């Protein structure tokens, strides 16, 4: 499936300035793997030493937090948008 990963400004120094990355993926995990394979410097910011998504990195599939969708194993559909949000604020 073709999905688009939207890159916030703070991450773009790791993606050569690209604001969005087109990926081919079946799951969120696939999409993240393609992202970090293409931009290895982003890898340690996405996953911790145990390989888990970092605690303060929030990942959304379209408008939903992936933790409500079964985590990174959740399937993606053609044209889905994946959003990375560092350290959600609010409160």
């Amino acid at each position, binding site marked *: 499936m073709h999905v688009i990963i939207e890159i916030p400004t703070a991450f773009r120094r790791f993606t050569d300035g690209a604001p969005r990355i087109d990926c081919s993926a079946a799951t969120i995990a696939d999409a993240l793997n393609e992202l970090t394979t293409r931009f290895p410097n982003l890898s340690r910011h996405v996953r911790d030493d145990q390989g888990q998504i970092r605690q303060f990195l*929030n990942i959304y599939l379209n408008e939903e*937090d992936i*933790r409500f969708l079964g985590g990174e194993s959740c399937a993606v559909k053609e044209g889905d948008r994946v959003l990375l*949000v560092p350290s959600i604020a609010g409160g």
Partner: protein
Amino acid sequence: MPDLYELRCRECGKSWGNSPCSFCEDCFSPLEVAYDYPALKKIVRRENLAARSFNMWRYSELLPLPEDYLGPNSVGGTPLVASRNLSRQWGLKNLYFKNDAVCFPSLSFKDRVVATALSAARRFGFETVGCSSTGNLANAVAAQAAQQGFDACVLIPADLEPAKILNTAVYGARIVRINGNYDHVNRLCAQIVDRFHWGLVNVNLRPYYSEGSKTHGFEIAEQLGWRLPDNVVVPMAGGSLITKIAKAFRELVTLGWVEPKPVRFFGAQATGCSPISDGVKRNLARFEPQKPSTIARSLAIGNPADGPYAIKLIRESGGWAEDVSDREIVAAVKLLAATEGIFTETAGGVTLGVTKKLLDLGRISRDETTVVCITGNGLKTTDAFTAEFPVTDAIAPNLDAFEALLDQQLKPVGHAAAAPTANQVTPNQVTTVKA
């Protein structure tokens, strides 16, 4: 004088100076304001405060404010109310309510955080400020933005209480209702600050904003006679307030303004949105986000930004976290009003209801000093209580009708009735006369 504070990553410790940013661009973890305490110790003493007004600006040196910043509002300086009736009813020796339901100007503790955030907004040159809000913050941003000449745009979940929407609209703020819960609103706001040069107080200004919460803690210590309590019970939405009260207490110890003392921190949530209390009770390594469903909408944050830090603090302090149902929340609001004369919003019902639960569980000792943090005013959430108080039938304006009503409807009023004077009759006496 250079700033005696700067932003520092809470995880990797890297310093980032002062800028409108809430996360570390190296490790994407949250930033927090760190202070040069040895320098602060030289420029401010506890004795300096005696000549200052009792509001949050008396602690200015301990806040991330531009040099010589004059806070334009008398924000904070709220009462610490010694319990008269609940303490007796519950068998507590020293029970206090820190009552931010009467905080100026918008009747919640959010006035404190907005006050520090707008000082940062001015410093960084923002003309438009805003926030993602469950209601109280929107009120505070709208009120203070109006006074200080900022344009305001607040984003809220579409189903927010009407009173909280009205209390924002009246100040002229632009209100954007979002079809979604608070966490959806919050995610959108993260994208907005990436696109627009706006100062969203709890997004890109969040490190400065959240420092304002410390003044709630400073005031508690000062009002206890420069002593720390044994226990503090704090409502938790994003989990920031509880960590900032702890930071305030640590700073007072560091500066030598209070004696060091272990303080247990207790967190309160509604069962319908309890990711932090759930994390504490189940001893989770990471909290699990929730879809909120509770009348305590000001606490309805399913993905709390400071959840991990709140859980850590509660555990390390020897405290605990609990949650209460909507029914318990309403009962607790009524109890606080009927016993102490404090009308709090649903969040306050959460805090009081949890306090009772902690007492029943033996988590809080009745011999110790306990402070319960009341953070918002009941006038903002009257919808939640309307069903509790149905409108009564009207009567004719004469004594016969009045006495008939007493006969039909009134039971003897017990706990709060003052002794009647010689000229007064009690409802019982009226009944007796008629009989």
